[in-house]
C-alpha cells in the first residue's frame, strides 16, 4: 500500500459528520452484513467520532450555511486553516478568535474582530448546549434549517 498524497484536502467536521451518518444509514439498510470482527473497527471509530462531533456546534450546519459563511469570510482575508477552525469551533468571544487567528492584534482591528464575531454567531447555528441557555434569542437556526 502506498500513500500518494497525505494532505490532499482538508475536511470540516460537518462533512465528516454527514459522511458518517450516511454510511451508518447505508449499512443499516443493507441489513445484517457481517457483524463479525471485520466490521467492528469501523463500528467503533464511527461511533466514537459521531459521539464527539454531535457535541459540537457543527451538528446543525448544512451546505448552504457553510457556503454563506465562506462568502462572508472572504472580506476578512483569513487563511484556509483559520476559516476551517472558525467553522468547526464557532468562537463566541474575542479571546477565542485571538487563539484561532494568528497575530490577530496586528491583522485585525477591534471593530473587525467584533464584525467577525457577529458574522460567526449570526450565520452558524449554535451548539446543543447553547440552545438551551439562549432559547428566546434563537431566530437564525430555524430559518436556515427549514431550507
Amino acid at each position, binding site marked *: *500500500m502506498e500513500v500518494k498524497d497525505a494532505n490532499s484536502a*482538508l475536511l470540516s467536521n460537518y462533512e465528516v459528520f454527514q459522511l458518517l451518518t450516511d454510511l451508518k444509514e447505508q449499512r443499516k439498510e443493507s441489513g445484517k452484513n457481517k457483524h463479525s470482527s471485520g466490521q467492528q473497527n469501523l463500528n467503533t471509530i464511527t461511533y466514537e467520532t459521531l459521539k464527539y462531533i454531535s457535541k459540537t456546534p457543527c451538528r446543525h450546519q448544512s451546505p448552504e450555511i457553510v457556503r454563506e459563511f465562506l462568502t462572508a469570510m472572504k472580506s476578512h482575508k483569513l487563511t484556509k486553516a483559520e476559516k476551517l477552525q472558525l467553522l468547526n469551533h464557532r468562537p463566541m468571544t474575542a479571546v477565542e478568535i485571538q487563539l484561532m487567528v494568528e497575530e490577530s492584534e496586528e491583522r485585525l482591528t477591534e471593530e473587525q474582530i467584533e464584525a467577525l464575531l457577529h458574522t460567526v454567531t449570526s450565520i452558524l447555528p449554535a451548539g446543543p448546549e447553547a440552545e438551551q441557555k439562549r432559547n428566546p434569542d434563537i431566530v437564525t437556526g430555524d430559518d436556515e434549517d427549514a431550507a
Partner: protein
Amino acid sequence: MFVLVEMVDTVRIPPWQFERKLNDSIAEELNKKLANKVVYNVGLCICLFDVTKLEDAYVFPGDGASHTKVHFRYVVFHPFLDEILIGKIKGCSPEGVHGFFDDILIPPESLQQPAKFDEAEQVWVWEYETEEGAHDLYMDTGEEIRFRVVDESFVDTSPTGPSSAEAASSSEELPKKEAPYTLVGSISEPGLGLLSWWTSS
C-alpha cells in the same frame, strides 16, 4: 482536524464474494483493513471517502481470488500544528493531563503558569492571581478543555523479528504497549484550558 488522504492499494476479493458488487466488496475490504488504525506518518484512519480509480482485476495462478488495484481517498484524523482542539480530561498524573483519544498528553510546562499538582486529589491546579487573591482552578476529570496541538509523534509498531540475545527474552515477554500516534498539547495561552474558565465572561 480531518484530512483526505489519497492512497493506492491492491485489494484481494475472495471467490465467495464474487456475487456481490465489486464496489461494495472493495469498500468493505478497505474499511476492514484501515478503519480505526493508525498509518505511520499519516494519522488515524476513520472511513473510506470514495474510490477514484479502479484498475483491471487479475486472478493469479494458484489463488482463486481476484486482485484489484484501487486508487481511493480515505478520511484521516490528523490535526495540523497549532490547531485548536477540544477534548475531555481523561486523567491526571505527574506527567501531565491526558485527554481525548487517550493518547494526548499535556506536559506540565505547557499548562497555564503557574500550576501545581495537588497530590491529595491527584489533580492539576492552576493558580490564578487576581487583585482579590489567588484562585485555585482545578482541572477535574471529565471536564472539557481546549488545547493547542504543539507536536505529534508516530511510533512504528510493526513487529520486529526475534532478537538474538537470550538475556533479553524475559523482558520481551511483557509487550511494551506504546501508542502508535501521540499528540503533545499546550494550554498555556489565554483562552485555552477548561472551557468553564473562559465562558463566564
